[in-house]
């Protein structure tokens, strides 16, 4: 009796109509519990005032409070950070990947690991080291270096441009290796014959890069750019480990930082949720525009 039953079950699970659902089920389940439910809950919370034992709907009040100077400052910081990290974390990793893929470089494995190690380092540790390297004292490493080059010491953590520089620098240091790996993987997929025929046609280095390498890397570039845009808007740790929440003049305040400050540090969850919803919309719109512009939604044969 039993084996027959099992067979039935197995046959059901193996049927062509069912099997796709079986395979995607774990994803659907985790997505529902870990993403969809919290998102819906956050949207509901954004219309509430939430105090212990005392939750009430207050309509759009949270949203009406959002748009002030502090929010615009956070939005501007996050946007600038996003643009800078996208520019740096796309261009440099491509060049590094090509370099590491070429025959010019020895000890490739060493360089690959060296580049990748920062991604494995705890951000807290990295933050402590960055704070010490870029501390305002004249004896701090960064100030000694620029002093050697003839510049005045800089109060790195206290002026707007250097604050942004620190955040971008930290992000670049952290994610460079990961992006290099993406591009290295992309480069492996380019057939060597194409370079050979380009050589026969007398193409120079730049032409090979422009007409062979780049087109093949395009899907990877789109992918990396998209996650960099999302990551850029979501920036939080870089700012948090440098300033521990409150940056002077809000030079390091980011959207997620503002969400954290208002929602959690100051126990105003409803308002925090509203900032989160706005952030979600911003990321959604910017990503869609980018993907539309690069034609990522088109089918390959179009």
């Amino acid at each position, binding site marked *: 009796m039993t084996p027959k039953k099992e067979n039935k079950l197995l046959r059901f699970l193996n049927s062509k109509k069912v099997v796709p659902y079986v395979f995607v089920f774990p994803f659907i389940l985790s997505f529902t519990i870990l993403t969809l439910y919290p998102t819906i809950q956050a949207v509901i919370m954004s219309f509430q005032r939430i105090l*212990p*034992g005392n939750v009430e709907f207050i309509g759009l009040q949270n949203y009406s409070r959002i748009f002030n100077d502090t929010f615009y400052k956070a939005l501007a910081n996050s946007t600038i950070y996003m643009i800078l990290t996208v520019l740096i974390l796309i261009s440099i990793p491509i060049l590094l990947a090509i370099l590491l893929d070429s025959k010019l470089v020895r000890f490739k494995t060493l360089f690959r*690991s060296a580049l990748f190690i920062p991604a494995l380092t705890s951000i807290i540790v990295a933050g402590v080291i960055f704070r010490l390297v870029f501390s305002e004292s004249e004896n701090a490493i960064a100030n000694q270096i620029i002093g050697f080059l003839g510049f005045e010491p800089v109060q790195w953590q206290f002026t707007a441009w250097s604050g942004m520089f620190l955040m971008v620098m930290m992000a670049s240091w952290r994610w460079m290796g990961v992006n290099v790996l993406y591009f290295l993987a992309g480069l492996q997929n380019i057939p060597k014959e194409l370079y050979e025929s380009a050589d026969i046609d007398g193409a120079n280095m730049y032409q090979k890069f422009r007409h062979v390498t780049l087109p093949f890397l395009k899907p990877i570039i789109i992918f990396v750019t998209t996650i960099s845009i999302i990551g850029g808007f979501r920036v939080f740790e870089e700012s948090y480990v440098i300033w521990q929440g409150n940056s*002077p003049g809000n030079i390091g305040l980011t959207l997620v930082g503002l969400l954290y400050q208002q929602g959690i540090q100051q126990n105003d969850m409803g308002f925090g949720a509203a900032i989160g919803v706005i952030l979600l919309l911003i990321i959604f719109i910017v990503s869609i525009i980018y993907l539309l512009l690069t034609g990522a939604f088109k089918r390959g044969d179009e």
Partner: protein
Amino acid sequence: MNKKMLSVISALLLFSVFFLAACSGGSEDSAPANADDVKTAGEDIEDATELSFWTFAGTHATFYANAADRWNKENPDKAIKLTVENYPFDQMHNNLLMALQSGSGAPDIADIELAKFPNFLKGDVQLEPLNDLIEPELDSFMEERINIYAKDGKYYGAPTHLGASVVYYNTEIMDEAGVDIDSIKTWDDYVEAGKKVVEKTGKPMTTIADNWYGIWPYVAQKGSDFFNENGKLTLDNEKNIETLEFINDLVNKHKIAELAPGGQYHTEEFYGFMNDGGQASLVIPMYYMKDFTTYMPDLEGKIQIRPMPKWSDSDYQSVTMGGTGTAVTSQSEHVELAKEFLYFAKLSKEGNIQLWKELGFDPPRWDVWEDPAMREDNVYYQYFHDDIFDVLLSVKDNVAGIQLSEYTPDVLTEIDSNIMHKVLREKSQTPEEALKQSADTVRQKIGDQN
């Protein structure tokens, strides 16, 4: 070749991991990454009631574990098994907020820092009032400190120290400048002395923190505050503007003060700067003695504690600042026992004496200040001088309290990120402009919520 390469790489990897680990251990002493810093007391006692405790300071954790051992000796019939978990500052407060908000997961007892405390007094307060313990002995406490953790006549927090603000003078520098520190009675004297110090030694008289330590003690000592007793915002009142102008003058007009290296008084940069004899004096509460003995060993014997100079228009000599209120949460299953233990550990006379002996904190109960047990030699008497409690007794009746409101965290955020930066560092706003602008920001929030 390949094998060799591999070993070189793994050696490099290992080295970097150890190097980074060592770095993190050194500078994050008081903030462990996880709650792996757990201390327990009374584990071996059968039938002991289990109590959990959250804190954010390793020193506090040891203090409570010791207190639990003493409790178990004195109360064998009501023995407790206390588990003290030590989390990083922000993480602990966030976890506690979430646990109280969501109705489960909170410990029986928790340390809550002063600037975070108002967050826990919103809505239906999820902490237990301690009135039945405090009220009978209210006369023995410095009320200014007890009131900080109160709302609507209910006391929710047991104070860890009085936190009387004082001036720590570096006598070596003051002597070099030829200034007698006992001649500094008013802030005007302080400015004059500062000019001499700068002229003779080239070192600043003091440094000003970018955060609220750079303004709140001065404002409160002048008899003002950011909120009045009715909870109305007074951030931009006349006295506060005057005070910030005074502080701004110290830095940008008289040039006798600089901005604190690292922005505040609890950074590696600042400890190093101070330890090297970087400034002649520092205005900060008594609890900072612990920082001196821990991080500034070179100054041993050179630091003299004196009351803050007075304002001409106010009689306050000191201000209670900083600090931690310890609270029993409503989620506790043993509220009464937790409260009794808390009283034993921090509110009783014996507990207050231990606060001084173990942590170097000025006890919030003034009736122990003259107790012989307080005069026993310890690391603080060796480091500073033996008149620490004489200073406290001399200012006892002139200590200003502070007013907390549920919007205090908003004001402090404005001070930390806008006011001090724009006035002192960037010099892009006058004290009046900065205070008015920030007050408007906070008022907008208050208005929206009421």
